Each structure stands twice: as structure tokens, then as C-alpha cells.
């Protein structure tokens, strides 16, 4: 089943059919989510209006880690089964992940100033997310550092798997160390420790961010496939 979807032509066809729907869903979810986040939800009794920063911060953080995990899985697939599509998926996802990680760092900083009284603290959660950002940058730089794109993709795949050790560190940093950053309040085994009035916009925004990520990933992968096809055509024309 896996190999069926690894066929680039079939992937392009499916992506072309999925894209309008996922694009429309992204826009609709963002409209509803932003409405809930900015207007239809109450300000927090301690943080006031700054709680709304969380509706961008938390979904971006989820996506930034999920994206790295996705890249790691795709890298393993690329190294083991040598599917070219897995290389393209990893290569296309990395700049998206870097962007989301940057959003996490910036929004966290903006939220930290009024709430904690500082833009930045060297606690384990913040530091490990910063490391994640540098891992993304290293992955992107390594992908583009070779004249042979194949070689760049394979080297970046090994790096992605090595860097994956950071993901559990980020996830559990708030439990292992006594950090200023608060521990997880949504992804717990018992009921989430958040009031539904705040949880609703958060989940809506998370869904919107996820759809945005998927849409952009499909767009980038198709663009990459087309670029490869164009390069192959130019090479065959030059012969």
C-alpha cells in the first residue's frame, strides 16, 4: 500500500485533487478559529488579553514538533526503501517546520515579556526549542550544500534521524526539569486542565494550522516534483 502512494505521478494526481479541499478547509478554519480566538473567547483572569497569543503559540509548537517527527519518519523511509518521494517530503517540510519554530520562539517571547517579565529565559523548554530551530536550519543548509541533490537529501536524512533525540527532550523538558515554562495542560491522560471556553479556539486554531501545514506541504512537494521534471527535461534537451 505504501509503495502505491510513493509513485510520484500518482502522488501528483492525488495532491491535485486534495489541494482545493484542504485549501478551502484551511481558510474556513482560520476564519472560524480567529473569530473564536479574538472575539468569542473570554480574556484569562490572570493573563488578561495576552492569553490570545497562546492560540498561535501552542498550535505552532505542536506543528513544529510534529513536522520534525514527520521529517524523521520520511528520512528513515528514504534511507531504508530509497523512495524519492520521501526525500522530497522531508525537503519540502523542513522550511515549513523552521518557520513554525520561529513563530513559536517569537510569540513565546512576546507572551513572556508581560507574563514572566522577560523576553527570554534559559530554561529547558525554551532552550530545546531553540536547538530545534538550529536543527531545522542545519537540515535546510545540508540539503542545499551539494551539487548533487540526491547526496544532499541523503545526508540531511541522516542528520534528521540524529537530531530526533531532541524531540522527546522538548516534549518532556517541562516534566524532567523545574522550568519556568508551564507543563502540558491539553495532552494529558485525564481531562485537559483548560476551560472549554479557551480550549475551543485553541483546538480550532490547531486544526487550522494543521490544514495549513498539509496544504503548504502538498504545494511545495508538487512544486519540487515539477522542478525536478523541468530539470530532467532541460538535461535531456541539452544532450
Amino acid at each position, binding site marked *: 500500500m505504501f509503495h502505491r502512494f510513493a509513485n510520484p505521478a500518482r502522488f501528483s494526481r492525488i495532491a491535485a485533487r486534495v489541494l482545493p479541499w484542504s485549501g478551502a478547509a484551511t481558510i474556513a478554519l482560520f476564519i472560524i478559529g480567529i473569530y473564536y480566538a479574538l472575539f468569542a473567547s473570554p480574556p484569562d483572569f490572570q493573563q488578561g488579553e495576552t492569553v490570545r497569543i497562546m492560540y498561535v503559540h501552542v498550535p505552532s509548537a505542536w506543528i513544529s514538533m510534529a513536522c520534525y517527527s514527520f521529517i524523521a519518519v520520511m528520512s528513515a523511509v528514504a534511507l531504508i526503501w530509497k523512495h524519492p518521494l520521501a526525500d522530497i517530503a522531508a525537503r519540502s517540510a523542513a522550511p515549513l517546520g523552521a518557520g513554525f519554530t520561529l513563530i513559536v520562539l517569537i510569540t513565546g517571547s512576546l507572551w513572556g515579556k508581560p507574563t514572566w517579565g522577560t523576553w527570554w529565559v534559559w530554561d529547558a523548554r525554551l532552550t530545546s526549542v531553540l*536547538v530545534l530551530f538550529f*536543527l531545522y536550519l542545519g537540515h535546510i543548509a545540508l540539503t542545499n550544500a551539494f*551539487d548533487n541533490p540526491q547526496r544532499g537529501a541523503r545526508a540531511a536524512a*541522516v542528520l534528521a*534521524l540524529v537530531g530526533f533525540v531532541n524531540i522527546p527532550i522538548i516534549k518532556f523538558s517541562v516534566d524532567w526539569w523545574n522550568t519556568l515554562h508551564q507543563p502540558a495542560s491539553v495532552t494529558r491522560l485525564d481531562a485537559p486542565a483548560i476551560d472549554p471556553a479557551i480550549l475551543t479556539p485553541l483546538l480550532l486554531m490547531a486544526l487550522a494550522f494543521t490544514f495549513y501545514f498539509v496544504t503548504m506541504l502538498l504545494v511545495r512537494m508538487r512544486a519540487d516534483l515539477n522542478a525536478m521534471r523541468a530539470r530532467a527535461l532541460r538535461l535531456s534537451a541539452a544532450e
Partner: protein
Amino acid sequence: MIGLTLLVRRELGLALRGGTDAVMAVVFFVLAAVLFPFGVGADPAMLPRIGGGIIWVVALLAAMLSLERMFSADYEDGSLDLLYLSPVGLGTLALAKALSHWMTTGVLLLIAAPILALLYNLPVSALGALFLSMLLGTPILSLVGGIGAALTLGARRGGVLLALLILPLYIPVLIFGAGAIDGAVAGRPIAPQLMVLGGFLLAALALAPWATAAALRQAIE
């Protein structure tokens, strides 16, 4: 095992005959650490407090200087292809390279570190922590650095790229290495930090040669 010994002996022979490369890393180590008191002021009460961290940061950079050449000479003159075809195996090769990199860099840093401790006015009671943390930490730098060196083989601007890839991975070593020295200066127990460093070393010893071998395979094919 015989292959490992032979490879390490070959590397050490090359390093000895190559002359100044290894010494340069140590000179950089001392020189860069000497710069800090000029920048932050030479207050004798402050220097011991920041000394452990600075010695470790400079050690990371010094170890990284010679990483780029770990595989590049063999890659360019084709020895790497022959070693790939030899019965030794890439994992053993990676381990041998990391081991000889440590012997030509880490050990020298270890020898030079007490001099820096002197310059930074570290108390004698912290020397043990400095020595033990460097003894456990510097092999990790060589092992993890080998992954980066193999990944950037044949890359454009390999040196800068290597720093970008490797320095984030060095952060845990830095935290616990400097933490051990700071603990000793402040009179706290240092065993936890050293145990974590030892754990890192064992994990790196088990996993890094394997990852380096995977990276080398991509470079050769």
C-alpha cells in the same frame, strides 16, 4: 579489533607526520580562552565563576576545528573507497577515526586545561571536576563530530556547515560539563553531572559510529 588497532595506528602515524595540525587546536584553545578576561574584565572573584563554562565552550570550538579534516583527506585521495571495500567495515572505521581524533585533540585539551584553570583562578578543589568532566566529555565531541564530518564530505562551505550541524548537538555536553565544574567551585556534589556525561559517552559510543557509517555510505555511493 585488529582492524581498529591498525586504523588507529595509521591515523596517529599520519597525525604525527602531519605535524602542527593537532597542536594548532590546543593553541587555539588557550588563546581563545585568554581573550575572555580582556572582554569581561579580570575580576579575580568573577573569573572562577565563569571559568568552567568558558573552558568548556572553547574546548567545543577547538575540537570542532580539526573535525573537518577527519575524513576529507581520505575522501579526496580515494583511500576512503578502499577502506569501504576492505573487510574492516565502516562502523569500525568511524570508531577508529573518532578515537584517533580524540587522541590527537581531546587528550591535548585535557593536558592544557589545568593551565587555563590556573589562568581563571579556579580553586584546586575544582581541578578534579575539570579533569573528569573533560575526560568523559571530549570523547563525545569526537564521536558526535564524526557524524558531522561524514555528513559534510564534499559539501560547499563545509566548515561553516559543520559548525551549524554539530554545535546544537554539543549543547548537552556543554551543560553538564560546565555544570560539573561550577558545582565543584560552589562546593556542591558533582557526581550527578559526571554520571550523566558518562551516560552520554556510552550512548555516543554505541550510536555515533553507526550514524557516521550511514553518512559515509551516502558520501561514497
